[in-house]
């Protein structure tokens, strides 16, 4: 049995699902944020897999791979800013529990 595109995509979907599962389950801001990074990775995997399998001589697909470069850069920015906010909030509230960060409501 050879490994087909569907296998990669399924892994990617699983990664996405697990990422979202973590977001739904966890209340620790840091862990939630990590799970969000997993979701981004899922997309990276899918894009690369698609590019690899859908390449034809007439169509040397580069777009997906180039896109991945951007995604990695974006992820880095997001993490930087996100962690800055988390730290700033921690400094004020001394918590990273999402349930305790609920001054804004109703």
């Amino acid at each position, binding site marked *: 049995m050879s490994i087909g595109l569907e296998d990669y995509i399924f892994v990617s979907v699983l990664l996405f699902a697990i990422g979202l599962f973590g977001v739904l389950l966890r209340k620790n801001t840091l862990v939630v*944020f990590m799970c969000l990074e997993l*979701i981004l990775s*899922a997309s990276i995997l*899918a894009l690369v*897999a698609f590019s690899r399998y859908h390449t034809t001589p007439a169509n040397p*697909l580069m777009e997906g791979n180039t896109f991945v470069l951007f995604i990695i850069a974006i992820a880095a920015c*997001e993490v930087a*800013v*996100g962690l800055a906010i988390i730290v700033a*909030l921690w400094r004020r509230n001394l918590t990273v529990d999402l349930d305790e960060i609920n001054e804004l409501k109703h």
Partner: protein
Amino acid sequence: MDTVLLKEISDTNLWGLLLPEILLGCSAVILLFVDLFLPKLRPQLSRIAIGVLLLALALLSLGVGCSCGTGLSGELFGGLISHSEEADWMRVFFLLCSICITHIGGVFLKKQNLAQVEFFHLVLIVTATFMVLVQSNHFITLFVALETITVGFYVMVAYKRDSRLSLEAGLKYLIMGALSSGMLLFGIALLYGSASNPTLPGTALNPLNFDQLAHFIGSTDELFNNSTNFMVLFGAVLVLSGIAFKIGLVPFQIWVPDVYQGAPTPVTAFLAVSSKAAGFFLLYLMLTGPFADLEVVTLPLLTVVAILTLLFGNVAALGQRNVKRVIGMSGVAHAGILLMGLLASLKVDWAFGAVLFYLTTYALASFGVFEVMAHVASKDDADQDLDDFDDLLKKQPYLGGVLLVSLGSLAGIPPLAGFVAKLLVFIAAYQAGLYWILGVALVGVVLSIYYYFGWMRAAVMQNPFLEEEAPQTIASPSIGARVIMGLLAAATLLFGFYQGLFTF
């Protein structure tokens, strides 16, 4: 890859057409240096920023970087962006919005003990990115621009770092935004995967290009109908959900009131107007571009979403006393009406003009309200409730008058512009046969009266039970603020009577 092709592509990189954006970006950087080296100019920062924006506006209106007159409409930058009249219109729109936001920011920052220049820096860059975003013709441009904006907003929402609420709002926006980005991205990946599949009809060379994607989705052969391909559809709805987050459509609206409340007032305005408008323009681009052939799915989906949005937005705003949350929830309701207009524009050719008109009036009125809010707010601007506006008309007639006009326009009351905008959207919706949404929208307008009038009533009347607290003093607006507010209110009034400036 063949360098000739690359050269050909890079020949279409006509940077001159992005001159206004480049101007804003460079000025943003220069602004940081101005702050560093010319501290004397610090109090003037907001004016400098406004000047830059005005300059960009002038450039655009002189035809620089504008598709009009150059004959260069259509795809540029190898298909990454595409010039169109609507996009140009949106660019002007964003510039005008940012002028107001910059001004509100100036008013806001004057009351705060916060870094100043960074705010204007962020506003300028985000504005430029918005302008690129609406021209995007490619998912890479779209995603990168969108993420740039989102990162900018993470920072701006949390800008008031001495406030827990602002940081909390920043965190909420961060998590929800990142989640929606993830969904959007996964959707793009799925679309990419489908469109690049060589076994399917109409395989695209550049699957992330809107036109090629549209062509792919529209292609069928004996075996496959791409428009019913599950992966295509799923990718499309994921992309839509990512956009729905920006707009605040149910069920991706839940963050709206919290973030609006916590964010500094100018940022709330930025989110409520520019971000939402950009979202709508993207939705329009998607629905008329790549997803044009997915109507069978998108139309019922968005119809349900529009109905839920209208109901939720209006209902949740009932009884809300914090005005920023009111604005947030009512913004959700407005998004519902805009979505209705957008759906109508798929059937009725002039309806998108009505949507743009609606956006304009919504922006005018919202900025009117936000200007007043920025003036009324004390240092802590997250906790503004109706009592802060108690008897405003008497205390500060100018602010009170602008508030009444703006709220009236938001509520859609003649003779204000909001009414005409609503009317046109409603007519379009009826013409497009969107009876259910229209019905709910009308009910929504009735509900909206409750909270808009509650607010107006607070501004008109004195609440006798408010005696115990020392009456807070509200400073009179400066001349410049008066001019801007006056222009906003006057435009709101004028467009209620006269719409000749618009072509639909």
